[in-house]
């Protein structure tokens, strides 16, 4: 039996639908393309059709604040320990996100929807509120990145923030998941702007290879500042919105159990490309370490670009600033979508990027309103942007523990997962990582609230 015929089943078993819904028709058209590619044996074509959620979630998490974290790390400690550490954090992110792919293909339901239905309203509303509030504040930080990157090129804040918001709205106007995803994937390529920026820093390839192999040289002192950067780098790689976004995107894309290998490969590719961009950012900022520059007062990516200009040249610094704009823009689009999915799923409203505006009023309204609010806040003179940035870190890290534990419980729920439930090995790897990230997240949250707790 061909794969195409495997996808077909007895129509009589279904409840009769008078008029096929737009969302279903669009998803079915995508699935037919996948079935044909699978039947023709074209592996590359199949991977191309099925990749997307994993790449977008990993590159989306390389957002404005994350790139500033990597740049701060490179400027403070150079390449040594942190290059392999970043690889490790993305390996951890892969293990976490792979569970969301399995949940999506096994249940065809979003993460917020599953939490609400399987654990009840308390955890459903908590997960949704935590995510939507955290995402709104994170969106503010993305627009700060867009504004800061724009300022480097002499673009006034209203223009860069306005253009950023327009790009987010334009992507929603596709009203088509596949088109939205491909547009974002094209934009996500911009994350690799940090690679040529790093090359302008004339990195020592042998030293980088040695660092990756030996985790050294270690910083001379490993006090509170070092630990804070370790925790910030973990916080820059695994956050709650990623869990919600990827599962919802997998469902919206229409992935099935047969697509699981490609879904995993998509996630692994995303982790690898995002790790390359993150390490490139570390390397690009490392000349500031050699120059003993004080970056403690740097507030945005633009400060790094300005400080790097005499060290890596105007072209390198411009690529760095452009990369910061791209990082903020891509994250704004994925995070706004993540809020829309979670809110609409918990509110039992329609939730898909394949909906028309009338059917998906609430879904699109959440993304549009959160973008307008976040962009507007950035433009308010004297708005407490620093307070919001700090609070984002606290929310994302302190509330990582509930998000990951609920993820682990769902991935072990055999009633809904069947044969795709976590194996013992999955639970060992996932459990260790979830516990590690939860403890690290809680610790980072506490350190952010009480910065003197660990000393200097």
């Amino acid at each position, binding site marked *: 039996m061909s794969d195409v015929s495997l*996808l*077909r*089943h007895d*129509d009589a*078993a*279904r*409840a009769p*639908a008078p008029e*096929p*819904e*737009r969302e*279903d*028709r*669009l*998803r*079915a*058209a995508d*699935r*037919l393309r996948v*079935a044909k590619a699978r039947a023709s044996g074209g592996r590359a074509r199949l991977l191309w059709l099925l990749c997307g959620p994993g790449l977008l979630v990993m590159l989306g998490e390389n957002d404005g604040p994350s790139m500033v974290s990597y740049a701060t790390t490179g400027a403070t400690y150079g390449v040594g320990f942190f290059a392999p550490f970043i690889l490790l954090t993305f390996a951890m992110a892969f293990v976490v996100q792979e569970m969301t792919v399995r949940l999506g293909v096994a*249940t*065809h*339901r979003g993460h917020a*929807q*599953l939490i609400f*239905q*399987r*654990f009840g309203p*308390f*955890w459903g509303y*908590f997960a949704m509120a935590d995510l939507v509030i955290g995402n709104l504040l994170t969106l503010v930080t993305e627009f700060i990145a867009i504004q800061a990157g724009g300022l480097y090129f002499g673009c006034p804040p209203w223009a860069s923030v306005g253009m950023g918001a327009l790009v987010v709205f334009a992507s929603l106007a596709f009203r088509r998941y596949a088109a939205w995803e491909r547009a974002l994937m094209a934009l996500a390529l911009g994350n690799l702007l940090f690679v040529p920026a790093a090359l302008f820093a004339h990195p020592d390839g042998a030293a980088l290879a040695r660092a990756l192999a030996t985790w050294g040289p270690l910083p001379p002192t490993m006090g509170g500042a070092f630990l804070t950067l370790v925790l910030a780098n973990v916080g820059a790689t695994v956050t709650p919105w990623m869990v919600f976004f990827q599962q919802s995107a997998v*469902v919206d894309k*229409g992935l*099935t159990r047969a697509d699981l290998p490609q879904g995993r490969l998509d996630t692994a590719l995303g982790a690898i490309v995002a790790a390359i961009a993150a390490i490139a950012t570390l390397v690009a900022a490392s000349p500031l370490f050699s120059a003993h520059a004080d970056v403690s007062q740097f507030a945005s990516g633009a400060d790094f670009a300005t400080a790097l200009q005499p060290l890596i040249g105007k072209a390198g610094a411009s690529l760095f600033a452009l990369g910061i704009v791209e990082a903020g823009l891509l994250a704004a689009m994925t995070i706004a979508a993540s809020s829309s999915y979670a809110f609409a799923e918990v509110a*039992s409203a*329609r939730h*898909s990027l394949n909906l028309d505006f009338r059917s998906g009023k609430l879904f699109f309204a959440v993304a549009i309103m959160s973008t307008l609010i976040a962009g507007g806040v950035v433009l308010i003179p004297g708005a*407490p*942007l*620093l*307070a*919001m940035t*700090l*609070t984002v870190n*606290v*929310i994302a890290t*302190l*509330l990582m*523990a*509930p998000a990951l*534990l609920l993820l682990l*419980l769902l991935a072990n*729920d055999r*009633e*809904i997962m069947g044969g795709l439930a976590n194996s013992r090995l999955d639970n060992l790897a996932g459990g260790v990582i979830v516990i590690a990230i939860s403890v690290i997240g*809680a610790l980072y*949250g*506490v350190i*952010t*609230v009480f910065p003197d707790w660990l000393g200097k």
Partner: protein
Amino acid sequence: MDPTADLSALEPGQLSADTRKPLPRRKLSRGVVALLVLLRIYVLIAVPLVVYAFVHALGGS
């Protein structure tokens, strides 16, 4: 949009009408209930910390 798209390309659970049907609540074991209670306590501690962090940061900015 392809008006002739064949819905049979979708798995039964993938139809939007099917995904709107709620799943039953999970029957929780004692261990899971205990874990969720601990998680609620954690949340009760974490949320005031978040509020404190914001108010404290507001004062500093």
